[in-house]
């Protein structure tokens, strides 16, 4: 924070009234920061205090009993994994293709680029419950998929797409132009440069894009209520309905009296997963950086 020196005059030159204003501002701002940090701590500690007792490997491996009040979350974990897989299987190729097109093949200001970028920008702002309506109408009804893992995954794919495109486009743009010039100088096609040079170099950034998307998908519930549904069974195929961790927390908390204990434990699992994925890709990102020698 280099600005502090520039903006905080030291010594006796500051006149008393101004100093009082400064002090007041500092007190207020520190108070807010403390409050925010305190609330975060409150949330996390509350979850841990009530949830840890229910947590154990049995909780992760067992099927839920008594509407979820007892037992574990095995089918919920499986559903979450399946839905994520569908989401990524659709969003990653589509998103990567769009990002590559936007950053490598068309001019930033071209009408098509503007159109794609604007559309994705609007898509990014669409509320998740609207995605739920959209998924319900299109995938569940028009496409006849019913409440299913596939319908939920497709809906989430649409939802995370703008985020993924934007982050991976940025990762590609961050690759120095030197490599593009070197490739052109060797008479390589742009696509050859993308495939063999730019994508590997941008990989850490693209992984970050992936993590952001997974995080967004894991956290989502409203878009899934009416696409993947809230059945608690172990899904046997993509055509089965199932509930994710986030929906499990919601259902237990809202619709199952006495379900708080397992809701707490599930919330911890959900938060833990989000943290774990973040950590994991940070490590992968560093590994890739080392490998390419940058």
């Amino acid at each position: 924070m280099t600005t502090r020196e520039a903006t905080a005059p030291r010594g006796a030159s500051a006149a008393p009234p101004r100093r009082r204003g400064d002090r007041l501002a500092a007190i207020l701002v520190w108070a807010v920061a403390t409050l925010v940090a305190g609330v975060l701590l409150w949330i996390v500690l509350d979850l841990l205090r009530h949830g840890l007792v229910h947590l154990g490997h049995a909780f992760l491996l067992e099927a839920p009993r008594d509407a979820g009040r007892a037992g574990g979350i095995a089918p919920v974990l499986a559903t979450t994994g399946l839905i994520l897989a569908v989401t990524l299987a659709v969003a990653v190729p589509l998103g990567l293709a769009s990002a590559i097109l936007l950053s490598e093949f068309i001019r930033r200001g071209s009408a098509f680029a503007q159109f794609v970028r604007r559309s994705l920008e609007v898509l990014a702002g669409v509320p998740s419950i609207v995605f739920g309506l959209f998924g319900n109408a299109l995938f569940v009804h028009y496409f006849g998929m019913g409440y299913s893992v596939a319908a939920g995954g497709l809906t989430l794919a649409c939802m995370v797409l703008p985020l993924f495109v934007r982050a991976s486009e940025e990762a590609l743009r961050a690759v120095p132009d030197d490599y593009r010039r070197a490739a052109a100088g060797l008479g390589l096609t742009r696509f050859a440069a993308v495939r063999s040079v730019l994508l590997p170099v941008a990989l850490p950034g693209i992984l970050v894009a992936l993590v952001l998307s997974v995080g967004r998908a894991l956290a989502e519930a409203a878009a899934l209520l009416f696409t993947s549904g809230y059945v608690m069974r172990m899904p046997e195929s993509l055509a089965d309905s199932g509930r994710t961790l986030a929906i499990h927390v919601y259902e237990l908390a809202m619709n199952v009296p006495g379900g708080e204990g397992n809701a707490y434990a599930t919330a911890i699992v959900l938060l833990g997963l989000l943290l774990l994925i973040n950590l994991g890709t940070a490590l992968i990102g560093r590994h890739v950086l080392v490998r390419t020698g940058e």
Partner: protein
Amino acid sequence: MSPARTERAVVWSLRGAALAAAAIVGLIVALLLVESIPAIRNLALRLVTDSGWYPAPAATDGSFRITPMVVGTLLITAGAVVIAAPLGLASALFCRFFAPPGVAAIYRRLVELLAGIPGVIYGFWGLVVLVPLISALRPPGASVLTAIVVLALMILPTVALLSESALRDVPQRHLQAAAALGLSRWGTIAGVALPAARSGIVTAVILATGRAIGETLAVVMVVGNIVQIPSSLLQPARALTGNIALEMGYASGDHRSALFFSGLILLVLVMLLTALAAWLRGDEHDHA
């Protein structure tokens, strides 16, 4: 195939993919419109003139006043933004100007962590911690105020992170010039940094507002979901989003269509906000 031919094929497939990605938003609008047609045709003004919200599959069998839900959404959103905007901005200022470097870095991580917590967990926390607290103040506890607090917490990181990046974009030389004039720290912030970052901060608040309008389950879990125009902040209410979430499961016919219509309202509100934010940002670029 020659490399040039392959390349052309590649570009066309990439274009196809990008077009598909861009078409999704159009598809959403189109589907919502199509599904809303029965409601628009059969209900129209009844959405505001009916006596209450007692939906039925056929328009003639029920009453469909969505005004309370619209009021609920606006009230909750406004309250959340009124709380989150100053707190988020203060957080950004803390990071940028007040905290020692190490603390600022940790604090930023912490805010990012808050931004990553799923809405459902905020809602759950609100349900098990805040609702009993507020209920002690005045039952039932699940109320507009509870929703406002939970939602404010949820959107605060958005305001904080985006405002901070706007503040970071303020050229160093402006701040140095202010320091050279002997301005106090607060004088520099109020007189130079905030005005220079104004459009970025406004954009941050607008985007956070969009998030607040669209948030569903966190609100459902703490707002009580009673269809009424609340006479005080401590009374329960229902939001447009929550209404959809609670009733889509069994809705059919005109009822279902009315829910899609409320989705359309939400979408239009959020699109307007996005457009406003884009316009403000474009404005700033012109000046730069």
